[in-house]
């Protein structure tokens, strides 16, 4: 099926996510869509799969313009999409998930569907148990389920939005094999990624997007420098980290274990020094967030002790940790941590630790003026959060961090940011180390982990299965560990 997108526009508020995009995908091709985070790839694909309705533009399928008012329309037209956001699966078993949205008579014929599922799985070498609860599947298995379902629904165009985030190297290899096979069979596959290597490895053609526009197209293979140049204009400088001397222990975990669920099997011990940066790697849901919550008192351990700067805070409330200058920024906080309707001053009021009954507006205004100046936020102290541009919202968020900080815990500090903003964020974070702040962060971006950490802890199904020295480890080593293989090089933590 040949597919053409003509002059697609889509805006969200002040953001032009898609600004006149034209794109052609040929039958039986693996077509890459490459671009930095925030380039507008997901938006374009959501328009193509009926999730968003474009402001203007045309979608032409096999020479005929089509109207997609809903995802159901898109599926009827043969367009199916695997979404980027962690796939949320229904609390049904695999078979019922497979059946969802399927055509046919009114009655559910589970038997027939099961054999259909089986034959599709056999064909692509997947191994899915129809009666297993879908929530127990790994991310890779969920993708497999999603793919066979879309095939069964008659998809001829398959969109995969950043499918390699959170899956192991093994699963990625298997996914790529499947996608190649599908393209052989005449399926058009659109592979969306911000990772150049993956697109170069897999695709026949590639379209590059930046800031809502198409900036180049190429037939692969092509020299990677050309793609980099298209993506970034000119080669970008990565924020480099300087070395700081490590100080006293800021976070000490001793034989910590939770009562149930993740991290309940093997006790964890860890010592993080002042100025140290520890990266947390692993597939989504391997225990990283439980771990971070243990470190800041949002979750209590069943056994073991947690100490901050030498003081035992085991079992204490999160607010005690805050008082000891520990701060936790969960995923999404950097993008969504601001509150609509509150002004910059009010945000600082929130961040401050003023215990009084009445509001001390004077000091809140003073602090916000100082910080606006210091972080170069373009806005006034009475500006509401949503009136700021994205970059300035980032600045505000970082400015809201307390001035004195012993330990900073973060999830995905730069997810969803373009490269410049990500650099800026890290510049701020790394500067904090000079005042002795320790940083522990979880990320799915292997480059980010290797670039900014001193060492990396790798989580796998609720345990730490390895620790790597970020200075010497390679992407491959890290990938293997994340996939669950204990490498010889990395020492396995107790």
């Amino acid at each position, binding site marked *: 099926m040949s597919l053409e997108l003509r002059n697609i526009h889509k805006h969200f508020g002040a953001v032009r996510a898609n600004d006149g995009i034209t794109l052609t995908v040929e039958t039986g091709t693996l077509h890459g869509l490459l671009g930095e985070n925030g380039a507008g790839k997901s938006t374009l694909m959501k328009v193509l799969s009926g*999730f968003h309705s474009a402001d203007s533009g045309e979608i032409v399928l096999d020479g005929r313009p089509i109207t997609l008012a809903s*995802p159901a329309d898109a599926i*009827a037209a043969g367009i199916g*999409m695997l979404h980027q956001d962690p796939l949320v*699966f*229904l609390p*049904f078993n695999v078979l019922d998930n497979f059946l*969802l949205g399927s055509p046919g008579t009114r009655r*559910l014929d589970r038997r027939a569907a099961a054999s259909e599922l089986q034959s599709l799985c056999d064909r692509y070498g997947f191994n899915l148990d129809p009666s297993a609860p879908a929530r127990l599947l790994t991310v890779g298995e969920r993708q497999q389920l999603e793919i066979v379902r879309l095939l069964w*629904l008659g998809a001829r165009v398959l969109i995969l939005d950043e499918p390699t985030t959170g899956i192991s190297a093994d699963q990625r290899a298997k996914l790529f094999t499947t996608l190649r096979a599908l393209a052989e069979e005449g399926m058009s596959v659109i592979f969306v990624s911000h990772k150049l290597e993956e697109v170069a490895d897999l695709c026949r053609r590639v379209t590059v997007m930046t800031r809502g526009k198409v900036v180049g197209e190429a037939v692969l293979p092509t020299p990677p420098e050309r793609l980099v140049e298209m993506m970034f204009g000119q080669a970008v400088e990565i924020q480099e980290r300087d070395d700081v001397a490590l100080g006293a222990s800021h976070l000490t975990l001793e034989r910590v274990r939770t009562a149930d669920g993740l991290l309940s099997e093997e006790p964890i011990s860890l010592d993080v020094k002042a100025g140290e940066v520890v990266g947390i790697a692993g597939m989504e849901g391997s225990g990283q967030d439980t771990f971070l919550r243990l470190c800041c008192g949002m979750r209590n351990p069943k056994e073991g002790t947690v100490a901050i700067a030498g003081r035992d805070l085991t079992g204490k409330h999160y607010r005690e940790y805050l008082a000891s200058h520990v701060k936790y920024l969960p995923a999404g906080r950097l993008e969504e941590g601001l509150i609509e309707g509150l002004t910059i001053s009010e945000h600082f009021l929130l961040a401050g630790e003023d215990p009084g009954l009445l509001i001390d507006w004077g000091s809140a205004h003073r602090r916000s003026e100082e910080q606006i100046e210091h972080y170069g936020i373009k806005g006034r102290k009475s500006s509401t959060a949503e009136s700021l541009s994205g970059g300035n919202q980032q600045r505000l968020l970082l400015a809201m961090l307390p001035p004195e900080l012993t330990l900073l815990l973060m999830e995905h500090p730069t997810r969803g940011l373009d490269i410049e903003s990500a650099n800026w964020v890290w510049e701020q974070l790394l500067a904090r180390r000079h005042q002795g702040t320790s940083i522990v962060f979880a990320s799915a971006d292997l480059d980010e982990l290797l670039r900014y950490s001193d060492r990396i802890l790798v989580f796998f199904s609720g345990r730490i299965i390895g620790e790597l020295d970020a200075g010497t480890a390679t992407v491959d080593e890290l990938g293997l560990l994340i996939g669950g293989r204990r490498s010889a090089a990395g020492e396995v933590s107790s």
Partner: protein
Amino acid sequence: MNDSQLILTMFAAIGLGTPLIFATVGEIITERAGILNLGVQGMMLVGAVSGFWATFETGSLTLGVVVAMIAGAVFSLIHAFASITLRVSQIVSGLALTIFGTGLASFLGKAGSDPLVGEPSRETFEPLITGGIADWPVVGPLLFGHDLMVYVALVVAGAASYYLFRTRMGLSLRAVGEEPASAESAGVNVAWVRYAHVMVGGALAGLGGAYYSLALSPTWQDNPIGEAGWIAIALVILASWRPWRAIFAAYLFGAAVRIQFTLQTLGSPWSDVPSSLLAMLPFILAIVAMLALTSGKRARLLGAPAALGVPYFREER
């Protein structure tokens, strides 16, 4: 309490539980689609008055039932529009439906030159079978002595169970109530599914209301249904969102209502139990059930739809 009073109580409990089955099953279906409708009371009253009126005008019970269901469904559209299309607070919108419906039913019953209020119904539901097997001791009246709607209620509950768990539409419906975004990306039309099932809920509530005005107290009066709509909302929880369990929950409540009268007939000391304390029982039971069954994580195990009460908008993230 002697045997005949026990049988009488059970017999009456089945009758009193019947409208609650309709309303509860309707609300279960609505909530399974992720929409909380606190307008049950209003929809039942609108069904009660319109069903009564239709039978009063035409002498046909069938027409009365059909009109009540249509009226309930149409009336529920207000809530559907507010919660699905406008995505405003489902709680407030449901309450609005109840307030408006309560006023509307009373108003229509009293308005005009020849008001309905005080008029007996021209037709009422009568037992299907008299004599024969219905006279068998004990099981006769309990199993065979009821009017048609009692059996229809059982069929409705059974059919709803089958629909939810054995049909494609039922699967889509449950998916929409759990995870609208995932359901949508699987090609389910979320808005359509929600609209349709809010209306199914409205139709069943209307039917339940009509059972009061055409069977249980077949003379038009202000609010013939008491607090039935509110009780149905509590029963959804007791039935843990499973239609067939609604049968037992509804009969149990029917018995709790009826027992007040039974005690009166038993003489001292039974008749000294104050009826207002007994009238509290169903509501206390509902709260106890809430505490026991829905605290913390157990609510999920019970079957409460994950997206219940949460507005869904495709283009939001």
